[in-house]
């Protein structure tokens, strides 16, 4: 019985993580709750996960999107490292959305690697949520 009822409707699964030495978790905790309230199933990687462990959680949990946030200027090394690990684990299709204190020039570099969003502090949650929905749906189309 495929897709019997509403409870089996596909929901966006998302992992929020700070993949570096950065304990400023206000943003990710707020985002986790906001994603839940937008109807998503939300995982949180906890404090100080390595890029590898973030990718491994994403893979086990088969999330659609990994949302990364850093305020410690390590985004140019840490975000691509997560991307690299996802590819290595056969999960290059999992979307990465970035955020934090990211200078404009770095945004472009991240975009080129397929890491999208790259929202600054104080971005309205709806804007982030809409973006996540957009990239998740894009992935779902490919999943078919």
């Amino acid at each position: 019985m495929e897709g019997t009822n509403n409870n089996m409707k596909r929901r966006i699964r998302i992992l929020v993580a700070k993949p570096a030495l950065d304990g400023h978790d206000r943003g990710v905790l707020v985002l986790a709750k906001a994603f839940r309230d937008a109807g998503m199933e939300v995982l949180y990687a906890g404090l100080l996960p390595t890029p590898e462990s973030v990718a491994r959680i994403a893979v086990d949990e088969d999330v659609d999107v990994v949302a990364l946030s850093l305020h410690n200027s390590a985004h140019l090394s840490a975000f691509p490292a997560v991307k690299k690990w996802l590819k290595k684990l056969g999960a290059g299709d999992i979307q990465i959305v970035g955020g934090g204190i990211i200078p404009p020039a770095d945004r472009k570099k991240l975009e080129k690697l397929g890491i999208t969003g790259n929202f600054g502090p104080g971005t309205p949650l709806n804007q982030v949520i809409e973006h996540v929905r957009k990239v998740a749906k894009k992935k779902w189309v490919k999943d078919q």
Partner: protein
Amino acid sequence: MPKLSELISSAESGNRRDIGKLVTIMENRSDGYSSLIKRISRKKKNTFVVGITGPPGVGKSSLISRLAAEFSKRERLAIVMIDATSPFSGGSLLGNRLRLENTDNIYVRSMATRGSTGGLNLALGDSLDLMSYLGFTMTLVESVGTGQDETDILHFADRIIMVLSPGMGDQVQALKAGQMEIGDYVVLNKADKPDAIIAEKELMETLSIPDLSKKHSLVKVSALTGEGIKELVKLIDAGRSSKAKDESVILREKERIRREILEVLKSKDDIIEMFAKKVVSDDLTREEAVLEVLKKILK
């Protein structure tokens, strides 16, 4: 998307990416679900399932982390952790796996209840079949921990650990009334706390009530210090050799069928409503309406 058979054989060889994808197919009952179920249900169910339940805040996840560290030394271990779905948004925070320490050799999957009653996810049964099929020798399942009616874990687990902790007062009192007897092992966690002795005495009294149908083992542990974990592991191992009575297997299957039927009914609410109106307007008797509903659903 690769073909289902490719996914399955890749998952069989231990590819966690593809195990993850298969569980997703089951959770969403998306394309390929029926053939996947057919394929895996042919194999004998031999993953030993330990359910961990208990009120919120007793340290279920931390206890699982300790058990996982022990069992993963010699088992192919999977862990399924269930969190509540928000009734308002349909979303969920799957926070349980945060307590796990080292998951390198353990497949861990978090699930939301998705409106399913009894503290479990409808895809749990299917997922356990999948774990069996893929050769996981043991699966630990953490139920949601709302502290409410969560006896459904009975229908999926070979052995159940009821976790309690000292200083829970009213919550334990409430459990005494009905729920505690589902545990094969009653575990008093946080034994490192000073009030553990009082809680233990209270529990001993409760557990010796004569009309409790099962025999329980009370184990004092501390997920923080590791105290009592080895003893609990031994008890679980002992329970393993006496598992798998045919009648319990049939009981479990019965329950799964019942749950599936309830899910079907939930999804056909519009039909039921249509016939309810006819009963109210005296066009049909209730009995007739029931038959009509069933006919209509079966079509």
